[in-house]
């Protein structure tokens, strides 16, 4: 095959993917950016370009607070989920016999089989005044009266963590099972204790899996609307909730687009940070 024919064939192979990306990502994204530079006057969209929506977002405290709330919740969810998922994945990978690992993993992802919305409403009942958690706390004599657990940030974080621990467990487990036991043996031969082996050998080698899972958690959590809407009790609004408000109530597509672009910029920055500092490209 001549080089030219090879090039043509190569373009032929990548063309569908390129067209797909152009049609369903690049074009809609460009449209969204353009719309974000327009503005709503009364009930009419006035074409841009202008930065009115971005200026309004960063100067109006109640809107900017949506971004801060989203970042705070996402940070807590990511840290807590990693802290819970890592030991769980390690137990499955190192302690559970090989033949049972698949069964345990299926049990771990079982909650994914129910609807996301139904699961959120279920948490609303579990964390409610008469729910299982309050009943247990009072039954054990830890509290005398029911605590307000639902309609709080705690409830939102709990709903998220329940979901993302499973996701992180899978990504970290996939990394751990590929790890040769020889690394730990070599470290032990060189005099490293269990803690030192974990900190200096196991953890760095499994970091790509942790970072991948943490990044997915960050992206999905930042953009999620359902969980804070159902469990948060509207006591504070996240950025996706504010975007939905602009769309559903105001019909303000330019402002919603500007907020979506900001959300995307934050996620891109998170990706760049991961790639730069943790060499995520090795994954």
């Amino acid at each position, binding site marked *: 095959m001549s080089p030219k024919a090879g090039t043509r064939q190569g373009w032929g192979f990548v063309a569908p993917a390129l067209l797909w990306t152009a049609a369903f990502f690049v074009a809609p994204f460009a449209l969204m950016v353009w719309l974000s530079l327009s503005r709503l006057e009364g009930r009419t969209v006035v074409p841009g370009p202008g930065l009115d929506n971005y200026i309004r977002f960063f100067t109006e405290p*109640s809107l900017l607070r949506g971004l801060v709330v989203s970042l705070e919740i996402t940070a807590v969810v990511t840290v807590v989920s990693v802290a819970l998922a890592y030991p769980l994945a390690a137990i499955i990978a190192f302690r559970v016999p090989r033949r049972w690992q698949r069964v345990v993993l299926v049990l771990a992802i079982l909650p994914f089989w129910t609807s996301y919305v139904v699961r959120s409403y279920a948490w609303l009942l579990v964390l*409610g005044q*008469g729910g299982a958690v309050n009943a247990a706390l009072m039954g054990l004599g830890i509290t005398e009266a029911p605590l307000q657990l639902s*309609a709080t940030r705690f409830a939102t974080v709990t709903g998220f963590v329940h979901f993302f621990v499973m996701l992180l467990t899978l990504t970290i487990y996939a990394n751990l099972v590929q790890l040769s036991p020889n690394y730990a043996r070599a470290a032990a031969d060189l005099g490293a204790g269990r803690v030192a082996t974990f900190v200096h050998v196991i953890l760095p080698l499994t970091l790509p899996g942790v970072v991948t899972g943490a990044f997915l958690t960050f992206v999905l959590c930042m953009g999620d609307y359902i969980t804070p809407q159902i469990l948060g009790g*509207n*006591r504070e609004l996240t950025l996706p909730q*504010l975007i939905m408000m602009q769309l*559903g109530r105001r*019909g303000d*597509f330019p402002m919603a687009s500007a907020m979506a672009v900001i959300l995307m910029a934050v996620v891109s920055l998170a990706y760049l940070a991961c790639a730069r500092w943790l060499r995520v490209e090795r994954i």
Partner: protein
Amino acid sequence: MTPFSRALMASTALATLALAAPAWAQSLNALVWCDHADPELVRPFEEAHGVRVNLREYEGTAAGLAILDQSRPGDWDVLVIDAVDVGRAVDLGLLAPLPADALPTGDFFPELVMEDLNTRDGQVFAVTEKFGYNTLSFNRAAVDADAMGDMNSLFSGDFTGRIAIYDYYLPVLGMLALNEGIATADLDAAALERLRAPLMALRAESRLVGEVVASQTALATGEVDIVVGGGEWLTAVLAEENPDLDWTIPEQGALLWAQSIAVLADSANPDLALEFVRYIVSPEGQARLATSSCYWGMPANAAAAAHLSDEERAILRWDQQPEFLARAQRYPVPDADLDAAMQDLWIDMLQQ
């Protein structure tokens, strides 16, 4: 090809054709609120006319208008809309004129004919189908019903952390306006500023701000004992499970909500759409709509009483309607700027 193969192919082709053929000769596309999605409401119309009614639910006029804006002409035949927003839809040229003599408005509660909203220059564009109140829903077992007779009791400190606010700015701001002695029709930018402090105070007393299901769940599970902005639409569907869930209109008054139904100007099936509207406002249709599984509400057509049981009428407080209607005011009808200011205030409250 063997006879068996031919027979097999022929029967397969016939079966495919039978499956591919539309089950209904004609279909109607309606942009509605969730109460219309009850099969008990739509099925009798479908069976009577041999048609299929495709329903799409939406919430909030802005969302409905956005859907219409993004659709092709003729995609939609029927629209359910807030009665106070019928004028907006007429201004946009979205609604078709309706023949007044085809509608049973003579049987309606007089206050619900709403000619000023449904009619433009003597031409009818929509007809009221259902109404109710945004007021105070509460748990009688946990809250003194007398206290709910005065809206100021919400700020007394007796119910701190036991209140849910219905997450819709128009009725709640309207209720606070009534409590401040401002008629909803007089609510302007200056009056709105007077509502900031009471709104923030109410927020401080509340446990959550929730949409319909969240508010209902909170009241039903005992998470809260009062829902500000609630009403029969919130508690009626829960009454069977917990008869203590009740609603009342405080001395300051309540907000009257009303929904209208209309035929879209570019409907592909205008005659069928009109028939659907006539069915919905007929006594039978009204009774079914009033007790829809999504939410209950009073039928605009008083003749529906004959098709409701004593118990259903009791839950709807049928006999008290003249008194309630006299004490209720309509939703505020803000222009675009005031509407934006109201929503900004609402977001400030949520982010407090």
